[in-house]
């Protein structure tokens, strides 16, 4: 496995001149490998978006270093590095630059001086990948939130990025929109070997990840597989999150004296356990 992004003791404060306010991100380290799906979870204000901005060089850490493909992120190489990272932000309206869908997808290509014929090819390709090619001439205010987010993903894909960062990209969407976006991202990962870093509050969404980084008040509280993180149980609730449905159910059932063997992440597992532990003996 090859390392693609790493934080090494990164600290960032929006107000370094006020030592009493807590740092937005404090002493955070982790490594992400190529092809992984990582999720960052944490309460409102725990520093997740700040981390996304640090990764793309929108902010520079006051301490520590960030490496992208083992290269340290500096003021000099940010433009090069940005072209390898795609970010989709939370508010679908505030990141749509172009007048129409195709203009928006082309925006990053234009910025990077991609020749015209190549641009046309890439725009169509990217829109096909997110299944929006029928909307090529639509204006943003005629699209739903989920569709706008898919266009934003296409805009990122057009640059053939190595890493796709989703900063709560689904949190302003309705359930259908959320579903649309997640399905597309999952499909893409298989299709083009993308590394995905998703920031979210949605624990069911976090279950999709290979690994979860759990933030609390600017610090990394825990890191591990979904099983490991959700085993923290009450800590999750205490730090602003919640337990996934199946786990909550497991606990409640056990409190009712129902026999269950272990902790369960998904409903299927739980139902199976219910069956084997209680009926199928």
């Amino acid at each position: 496995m090859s390392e693609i992004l790493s934080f090494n003791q990164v600290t960032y404060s929006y107000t370094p001149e006020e030592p009493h306010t807590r740092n937005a991100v404090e002493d955070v380290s982790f490594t992400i490998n190529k092809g992984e799906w990582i999720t960052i979870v944490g309460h409102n204000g725990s520093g997740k978006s700040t981390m996304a901005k640090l990764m793309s060089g929108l902010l520079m850490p006051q301490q520590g270093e960030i490496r992208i493909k083992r290269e340290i992120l500096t003021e000099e190489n940010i433009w090069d590095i940005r072209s390898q990272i795609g970010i989709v932000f939370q508010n679908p309206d505030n990141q749509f630059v172009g007048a129409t869908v195709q203009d928006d997808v082309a925006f990053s290509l234009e910025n990077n001086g991609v020749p015209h014929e190549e641009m046309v090819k890439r725009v169509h390709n990217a829109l096909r990948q997110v299944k929006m090619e029928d909307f090529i001439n639509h204006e943003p205010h005629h699209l739903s939130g989920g569709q706008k987010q898919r266009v934003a993903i296409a805009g990122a894909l057009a640059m053939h990025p190595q890493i796709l960062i989703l900063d709560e990209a689904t949190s302003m969407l309705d359930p259908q929109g959320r579903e649309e976006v997640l399905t597309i991202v999952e499909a893409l990962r298989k299709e083009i070997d993308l590394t995905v870093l998703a920031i979210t509050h949605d624990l069911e969404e976090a279950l999709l990840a290979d690994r979860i980084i759990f933030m609390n008040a600017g610090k990394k509280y825990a890191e591990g597989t979904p099983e490991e993180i959700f085993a923290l149980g009450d800590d999750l609730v205490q730090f602003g999150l919640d337990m996934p449905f199946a786990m909550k159910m497991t606990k409640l059932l056990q409190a009712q004296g129902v026999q269950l063997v272990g902790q369960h992440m998904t409903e299927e597992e739980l139902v199976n356990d219910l069956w084997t532990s209680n009926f199928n003996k």
Partner: protein
Amino acid sequence: MESSRSISTSSEKTKDLIITSLLISLVFVATFFINIRLPIAANGGLVHLGSAMLFIIAILFGPKKGALAGAFGMALFDILSGWTLWAPFTFITRGLQGYIVGKIATMHGKNGGSFIYNLAAIVISVPFMLGGYYICERVLYGNWVIPLASIPGNLVQNAVGLIIAIPVCIALKKLPLFK
């Protein structure tokens, strides 16, 4: 808004450009969409807030943004609502007006915070606006008298703009955003 050390100059420029763009949109929206019903005969009493918005922007953001927002925002309104022919005149006249208001309101380090300067800025800009339209319409109608007809309407617009802009500026000045 963020700490100085993280921001390169290119990003400041980008942000500035976008803010100006949104100010243009705001002038347009105020002209096209925000109406206030007042007991004035003109227009059935509906007065738009375009001029007020233009004054507010010029006072808070200075001559350059004032001029751009006025010129583009108001000309865009003309183009998009059937006054295409007037758009170039509006562009010049309203741009000039935004510039004058912004220039005077931010003179002598006042930065849009002085009641007297803001008032003077708007009042002084009015003759320029009226004159600008007068000259342009003179060309259009080939007559010295007809353009006089639009003066009362323009005066009302400016007066309402003044009455609204001055208190709103005071309120906005208190925001962390504009300190």
